[in-house]
């Protein structure tokens, strides 16, 4: 059996670690609540934009716009594919980062010229070692997502897309299904696809209200689409932030739980060792006393 002092110091070290994991658990849970609130605040705007695009598409089925251009002429091998990968800045979040990396690896395995835009320190480390092209000017943190940062990111992406430096853009992020389930997911950002805006099929004989686009359809689309892309990126950032903290919360909770059970086990061992020491001492005293009597 281990020595009493050793067990004592082990218990203390586990207790210290437990303090840290417990604190991280509480921090993550408060950050997650904030992130969820933020997401709820921006939802009406985002759904409004989506609804408007679908309305315009419904009224102008023949509308050609550069954001809807699929660029089919470019062969598969030469397509420039950009991915915005959203990971965490640090680990300690269970399989959160690992899942994102795995999904991105699947994209990288497909034909095409790949370019990565990594948000988050951990992903940047991983992919720089792997030797894929990473946009080096793209240095953003995932902490506290703001509209401003989303605007910066979407500005850079939309620009490269319009210049023909990118033909397809994906976002790889973690979506929160509910508080226990979160999945790493790929979302196609550009070019936009008509099918995404479930265009309603309307009977031919129905009267449709006519909508004037002022000053022109292009003008209006130019206002809507960049904002829509912006909203999608913001949504992805916030959702990823919320899932990161959810993952960290769960990881820290199970760490705290296992620390607790470890302490419980160790304290039993400790008590036994202490009891054994006492018993031995008594036996020794008794034996000594008896030896004295015999004399």
């Amino acid at each position, binding site marked *: 059996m281990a020595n009493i002092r050793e067990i004592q110091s082990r218990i203390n070290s586990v207790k210290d670690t437990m303090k840290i994991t417990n604190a991280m658990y509480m921090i993550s849970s408060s950050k997650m609540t904030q992130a969820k609130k933020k997401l709820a*605040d*921006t939802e*009406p*705007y985002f759904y*409004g*934009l989506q609804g*408007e695009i679908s*309305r*315009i598409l419904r009224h102008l089925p023949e509308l050609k716009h550069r954001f809807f251009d699929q660029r089919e002429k470019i062969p598969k091998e030469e397509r420039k594919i950009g991915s915005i990968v959203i990971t965490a800045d640090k680990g300690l979040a269970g399989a959160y980062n690992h899942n994102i990396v795995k999904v991105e690896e699947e994209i990288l395995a497909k034909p095409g010229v790949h370019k990565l835009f990594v948000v988050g320190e951990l992903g940047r480390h991983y992919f720089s070692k792997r030797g894929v092209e990473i946009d080096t000017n793209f240095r953003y943190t995932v902490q506290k997502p703001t*509209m401003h940062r989303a*605007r*910066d990111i979407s*500005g*850079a992406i939309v*620009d490269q897309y319009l210049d023909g430096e990118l033909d397809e853009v994906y976002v790889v992020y973690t979506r929160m299904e509910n508080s226990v389930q979160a999945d790493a997911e790929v979302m196609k950002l550009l070019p936009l696809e008509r099918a995404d805006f479930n265009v309603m099929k309307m009977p031919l004989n129905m009267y449709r*209200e*006519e*909508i*004037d*686009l*002022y*000053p022109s359809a292009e*003008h*209006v689309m*130019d*206002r*809507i689409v960049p*904002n829509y892309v*912006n*909203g999608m990126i*913001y949504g992805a950032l916030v959702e990823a932030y919320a899932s990161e903290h959810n993952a960290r919360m769960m990881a820290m909770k199970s760490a705290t739980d296992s620390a607790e059970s470890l302490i419980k086990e160790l304290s039993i061992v400790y008590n036994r060792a202490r009891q054994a020491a006492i018993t031995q001492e008594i036996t020794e005293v008794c034996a000594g006393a008896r030896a004295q009597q015999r004399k």
Partner: protein
Amino acid sequence: METFGLKIIASDRVFYEGRCLSLVIPAPDGEKGILPRHENMVIAIDVGIARMELKEGEWTEVAVGTGFAEVVNNRVTLLVDTAERPEEIDIRRAQEQRERAEEQMRQKQSIQEYYHTQASLARAMNRLRLAQDKKWNL
């Protein structure tokens, strides 16, 4: 007097929802007014100042960012990236924003950065204009 339903949605909140008598918004080629029973329309909005008449003769001014307004069946929805009342604007912050943008404008930038700064400068100047007009009116 006749009214129409107005909903102003900014990117971070629902700014206003209720009835309105008339509305003036900054379109790319000048201001555009909307009265009740307006024709169905989608109008692009530039950075500028929108005015809404909520009660007769009472105009409220709002600094708006880029976006668009949708008029359908006597309902108007404004979707803009920012919307602020004059009293919500922090003049000092807006001034700092303007100075920062002006500073960046003087430096060599890529075209993308230039547009970015230009947009930021436009937002700052718009905020200042609304906030300072308000100050003189007091």
